[in-house]
């Protein structure tokens, strides 16, 4: 495991900066949309807060009890989407996949939990716009962060 550590883009200065000082980490008290993605197996979660104005993501924050991969990806993703429109933000998910290159199976789950939490925050915003009284929108992850050795090896092929 430790001989084969793979961080997004390796342990670059950028990655280290996101590890030491995660961007947009925390909570927004006046969020328009709040979403949670939960891995029920490991209880790992990401909570995502979005402040939206005229379809622009004016502010964004996230928090997690997850691993450092989740933190780094959350930090990079929130930097990408802040001050951009929702359509761009949704396309940014693919852009992030491109930016991160070939991830391990576990890191893909980390990326997906961040993106799912963002999508949940948009869903919460839509629901509130439609008059639903919903504090936050919860989406449960289909894939768990707990990746088996076989899945990891399959992914490495």
């Amino acid at each position, binding site marked *: *495991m430790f001989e084969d550590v793979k*961080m997004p883009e390796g342990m670059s200065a950028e990655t280290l900066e996101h*590890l030491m*000082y995660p961007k947009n*980490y925390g909570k927004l008290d006046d969020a328009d949309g709040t979403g*949670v993605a939960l891995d029920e197996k490991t209880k790992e979660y990401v909570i995502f807060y979005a402040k939206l104005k005229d379809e622009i993501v004016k502010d964004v924050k996230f928090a997690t009890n997850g691993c*450092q991969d989740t933190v780094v990806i959350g930090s990079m993703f929130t930097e990408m989407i802040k001050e951009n429109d929702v359509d761009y933000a949704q396309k940014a998910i693919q852009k992030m996949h491109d930016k991160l290159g070939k991830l391990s199976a576990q890191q893909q789950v980390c990326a997906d939990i961040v993106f799912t939490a963002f999508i949940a925050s948009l869903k919460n915003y839509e629901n509130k716009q439609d008059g639903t009284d919903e504090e936050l929108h919860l989406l449960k992850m289909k894939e768990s962060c707990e990746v088996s050795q076989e899945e990891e090896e399959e992914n490495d092929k």
Partner: protein
Amino acid sequence: MTNKIYQQKHELWLNILFASFAIDDERIKSHLYDFSQIAFRHMKWFGNKVLESGKDYNYDRDMVLLKQESNFAILKVLKEKIEATQVFYPDTTLGERVKTDDTYLLQYVAELLANPVNNAEVTAFNMERKWEDLDQSQIDALTLFLFEESYKEYELILVYAYMQARTKNMLHFNVFEDLVDESHFHLKSFGNMMAKLGILALPRELHRMTYVVKDLDKFVKDGIAEEEAAKEMCKELSDSIKDEKLSKFFDFINYQESYHIKLMEKLL
């Protein structure tokens, strides 16, 4: 008694603790670490007072750990934070005790600042990541381990302290106390290693979803699984690194994690 005091004390505890990690002088490091433990007890006592008054506290914080380049820069920031916190203390027996402790700490910091011999370059934030006898891949592995586990130890300290403050079960109270003490030692060890590597950073803030535990049994079982994972990480790190001293250290931590599991089983 309000959450505001609790938050200020939480921030001051971290300020003192991370000043201790960042400063390389063993004498100053050791003194500041002792003061950080006193600050943690203040925080715990304020938390109890908040609960006794029928209110609640949280782990929100509003602070950054600036990249300082000298001991004096760190000590000046610490001095300002101690002074700014003093105004929040209440006029109670506890408030007076805490004020007296902090006044003594201020005096100690002032004495350090008065003597230029105490100033030195700080390398804890330079991101150079150098460690004798380790190659780059081993340093990468160590870096990831330290970020992962320093956060985890901070999380465990706060989560167990939160539960300890609310339990009426004496056995649970004592187990939480032991687990908090053990995590303090691990956080100290990892924090000092991060400083040595030049990657010292605050653990990220805890969200309420992390520390408000609704099902203790489930929490403990998940915690035991996490301890098992931490043990495995320590073992792999110990096996993969070539530095004998460091390798022995991770074996030592690994055995400690084994006993944590035994302690946690008492909570079931």
